[in-house]
């Protein structure tokens, strides 16, 4: 299995740190970036397309965040006109159990929905999806 480039998006720095440390322990990622909300994540993505970084292959995305929430990010990301967008796998990671959130994610075409906190097994599976 090849190592992946991963973007972690959560306003709670603890979860970003947890996922980062676990990914490092499992040696699953070759590049890890973090963003604290959808807006920061979007800025990072734009950086990739300006050639500043490699494209993230997996985005672990929280839903409930200030400034721009997870859904806001997905909508904005889907509107981006950039190459290789389909290579980016967005995985929602949340503690929400609201069926409305689930439905909205589905409607936006996001099919992978994981519960916090991610286990080692979750991360292995998540990074092996594409």
């Amino acid at each position: 299995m090849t190592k992946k480039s991963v973007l972690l998006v959560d306003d709670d720095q603890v979860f970003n740190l947890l996922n980062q440390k676990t990914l490092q322990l499992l040696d699953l990622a070759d590049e890890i970036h973090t963003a604290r909300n959808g807006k920061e994540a979007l800025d990072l993505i734009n950086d990739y397309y300006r050639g500043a970084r490699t494209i993230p292959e997996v985005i672990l995305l929280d839903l409930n965040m200030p400034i721009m929430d997870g859904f806001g990010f997905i909508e904005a990301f889907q509107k981006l006109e950039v190459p290789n967008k389909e290579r980016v796998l967005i995985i929602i990671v949340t503690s929400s159990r609201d069926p409305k959130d689930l439905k909205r994610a589905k409607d936006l075409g996001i099919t992978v929905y994981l519960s916090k906190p991610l286990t080692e097994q979750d991360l292995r599976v998540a990074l092996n999806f594409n």
Partner: protein
Amino acid sequence: MEKELKILMLEDVEDDAGLIERALRKSALHFITKRVDTRDEFVDAIDSFQPDVVLSDHAMPQFNSSEALKIFKEKLVMAPFILVTGAVSEEFAVNCLHQGADDYILKSNLARLPSAISNALNKKQAEKERASATQELRVQNEELKKLNQELDRFVYSTSHNLRAPLLSVLGLVRLCRKEMENGMDESLLEYFDMMEKSITKLDNTLQQIIDYSKNARLEEELDEINFEDLLKGTFDYMKFINGATKIEQSIKVHDGPSFYCGKMRMGFLMQNLISNSIKYYDASKEKSFVNVEVFKNTDEVKIVVEDNGIGISKKYQDHIFDMFYRATERSDGSGLGLFIVKETIDIMGGSIQLNSEKDKGTSITLTIPNARR
């Protein structure tokens, strides 16, 4: 004395009308009558006379009881409609009842009329009561449904916001164990700090939910509010918040009549608004301030809390009072504070107005009615 019963008679034969009246007088009914025998008169009398009962003959030269009943239905008149007529076939009588007549009396048996009238009135009254009870139930049912939906929403949002810090602790515990198993212990203290923060946050959120239920649900006794004391106490209470000592605070309470409201609620409002002003001060400004100004009149109090903090940009202002909404990264709060403020103000019958500009500052104006005037 009993109210006079207004009886509208649809009858073309004056002698018959006389007979009917005589039959009625023998009973204990207090009544006045009006007699009509054309369609126009009938329509007009329904509006102007507002009958309590209609006694209708079947066939008149220009009108008949079937048409009268139709008009009755169209106008949604609640009064009983009793057919008083000469000999008719059983089929005709049944037909009349189907069309909505409440009863029929033969002119040869007028002695039954008074009891027929009171029975029909009782029946209508019962119908009216049942209809209004049904309506009331329907309204209550709608309200309950709405409350239930709100409760669902509240439970989802609350559980999410309670679970988040709990789950971060769970993750941290797992990470601690994993790292210890691998002989790594250099980060443990950092993880303990994080766990402590998460647990404190969880506790704060729980405390705010308790505040919410106290403020929003409980009936509170009215107190006269001494704004100077209350505001001084609030500022005093806030002095341990990060940055509080660097912020100039001023309280100005203008003279005015006594103001009454629930003291706990008012204290809660001030605490939330002032702590926001302190928490979101702008460190890049040379001088930071929080000013509170109070204007009282007989009807209401106006409280203005103004600061030169980081402000709220226009695009977030619509959501600032939403449950669990956080507009800034700098917020480590639960996103409940202003939501509860708004709920509390609604319950007090007041209003809140936000005036804020990013990087300039925020001014919040509360208007709360005087509960005793």
